[in-house]
């Protein structure tokens, strides 16, 4: 029974990671860049929900507003900070991403102050079931992330835009020659990634109502790790990696002697997995043509 509860907790932590990891993986797969500012888009999403709730009082309206804001923010960041550097060294883009991350964090502190905000979205209560007490938000989060992952997979597989995304991720130059507007596709990717960040923001607030400007930093890194474990660039991989990380975290936290080392354990697992499978669990193995 204990173990099942731990497992459910793990799934709950994991589905949030998965949601963030999906954003990372989409952007990485297509724009080939590590968007270190992704975690901070989540934070902005969180604040937008907070603002929406204060203004309208309606959780759904404020959430939709947050999604919209995040999408606009994602597109703006891409346009201002990343697009001018297309074709430059990927490391340069990495650095601007870090710059954007600092920028968002300090702007948030300037606007909303240093004190964390408490955001109560809706008290969904607990589900009592066979001796288990499971908070309903866990079920909501899990369900949402599975639905989103499936939708995203189908989108990429069956729509014109989705297939264009695959083409861009394989070879930007060739995609351009085939008449695909690469800039547009990358913009759409950022829009989707940032929209997902708003979802992640919602999930995190449902779980822990405290909102501060560092909300997205550590989950961002953990989710990035999750994306790499699953095989960066792969949508199911991001999901798998996220859930794996969450479960490991939950189990490790319940074992007292190793609990303080939880972060370390997650990273050790990452290293082991990468040593066995250098491109992650579901990552495609690529070879250079010789």
């Amino acid at each position, binding site marked *: 029974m204990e173990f099942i509860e731990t497992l459910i*907790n793990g799934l709950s932590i994991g589905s949030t990671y998965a949601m963030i990891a999906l954003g990372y993986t989409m952007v990485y797969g297509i724009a080939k860049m590590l968007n270190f500012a992704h975690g901070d888009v989540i934070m902005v999403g969180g604040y937008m929900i907070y603002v929406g709730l204060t203004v309208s009082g309606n959780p759904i309206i404020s959430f939709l507003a947050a999604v919209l804001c995040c999408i606009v923010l994602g597109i703006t960041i891409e346009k201002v900070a990343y697009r001018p550097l297309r074709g430059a060294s990927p490391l340069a883009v990495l650095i601007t991403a870090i710059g954007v991350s600092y920028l968002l964090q300090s702007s948030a502190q300037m606007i909303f*102050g240093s004190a964390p905000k408490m955001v109560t979205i809706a008290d969904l*209560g607990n589900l009592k079931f066979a001796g288990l007490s499971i908070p309903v938000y866990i079920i909501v989060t899990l369900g949402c992330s599975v639905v989103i992952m499936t939708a995203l997979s189908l989108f990429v597989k069956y729509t014109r835009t989705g297939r264009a995304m695959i083409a861009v991720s394989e070879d930007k130059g060739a995609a351009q020659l085939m008449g695909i507007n690469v800039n547009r596709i990358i913009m759409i990717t950022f829009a989707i990634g940032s929209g997902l960040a708003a979802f992640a923001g919602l999930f995190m607030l449902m*779980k822990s109502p*405290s909102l501060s400007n560092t909300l997205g930093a550590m989950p961002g890194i953990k989710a990035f790790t999750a994306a790499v474990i699953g095989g960066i660039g792969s949508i199911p991989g991001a999901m798998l990696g996220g859930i794996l990380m969450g479960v490991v975290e*939950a189990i490790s*936290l319940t074992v007292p002697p190793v609990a303080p080392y939880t972060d370390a354990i997650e990273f050790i697992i990452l290293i082991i997995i990468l040593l066995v499978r250098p491109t992650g669990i579901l990552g495609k193995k690529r070879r250079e043509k010789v």
Partner: protein
Amino acid sequence: MKSNFKKLAAAALALVMVFSFAACSGGADYTAENTEYIIGVSGPLTGGAAVYGVAVQNSAQMAVDEINAAGGLNGVMFKLVATDDTHDATKVAANYASMLEGGMQISLGTVTTGPGLEYSKLSVEDNVFFLTPSASGDKIPEFVNGYQMCFADGNQGKVAAEYVNTLGLSEIGVFYKSDDAYSNGICEQFKDNLDPSITTVEAVFTGEASDFSSQISTLKNCSFIFMPIYYQPASIFMTQAKGIIADDAVYYGCDGFDGLAGQFEDFSVIPQEVSMLSHFDSNATEGPAAEYVAKYTEKFGSDTLNQFGASAYDCVYALYYAMVEAIEEGKEIPVTISASDLSDIFIEIFESGYTFSGVTGENITWDENGYVAKGAVKYTLKEAN
């Protein structure tokens, strides 16, 4: 072509550096040109712990403004300089040096414990007196120039354990932040002083974790949970524990809990009893604490209202009245007095049984080591529903 830009930047850098180095003339007489008494403090004004630093900055500024409005010390005004260390000990040295070179004479030390140790060691070399509002590390008052307005961590842990021993429990939960000096400091003393017949169930977290479901699972059968942590993670824990930890359980924290009530729009959403060991009651309805709360809330809102600020407010006044007492005793405190000379005066005053009453307690005294002696009260922030 990049490197050319670099050359330009380098030239600019060299120029700026030369100017900044040239600006300082050398010599230790930094206070010679002071026209006000300068109080310095280093605290986290940005980053994850900013809420504590900002509270200290706001409150100290409020106290300084009040003193100045009332005419300062014999007509000489005070000035507060608050530098940002983002809770990072390595930033303290630069802050300390720049404040000292900027004419700092009195200091509130640091806001948090980690940087506080660094600060103590730096300031003891120059003999700069500090009375820290909230750096509660046990080692800090060991420095001859260091005094605390808050309880030392070890003391809190001991007092908390003594209280728990009287409750007659057989098992309690302990939830703490394993990578935090404050949390560990209290926890250690707490466990050492706890009745050996009481078993403890422990759960820990690190960093800026925001999902405590696993820890809550571990602690779910405990009816009494000791939480020597700051209020932000505590609020998350309590929200997430709703419905899992029994409604009649008790959450018991230390002074870090203060500010918790302000976190919730409606504190009654937490079914359990929440109480704390503290020197400041933000729910006070009368007395100096209530006055402080009213003034602070009016100026800065309730977001950053916590005992850090209250303590800082007291610190400024305690220093002010100490100066007043010194002058009454016939000491001279010119506005250009050096930090070291002033420190000698302060140490003499504080060691000779100086008593202060303020927001965080009445008849506060300090022992020869610099540990504060004042009433620690168990405040019930919220009764069980």
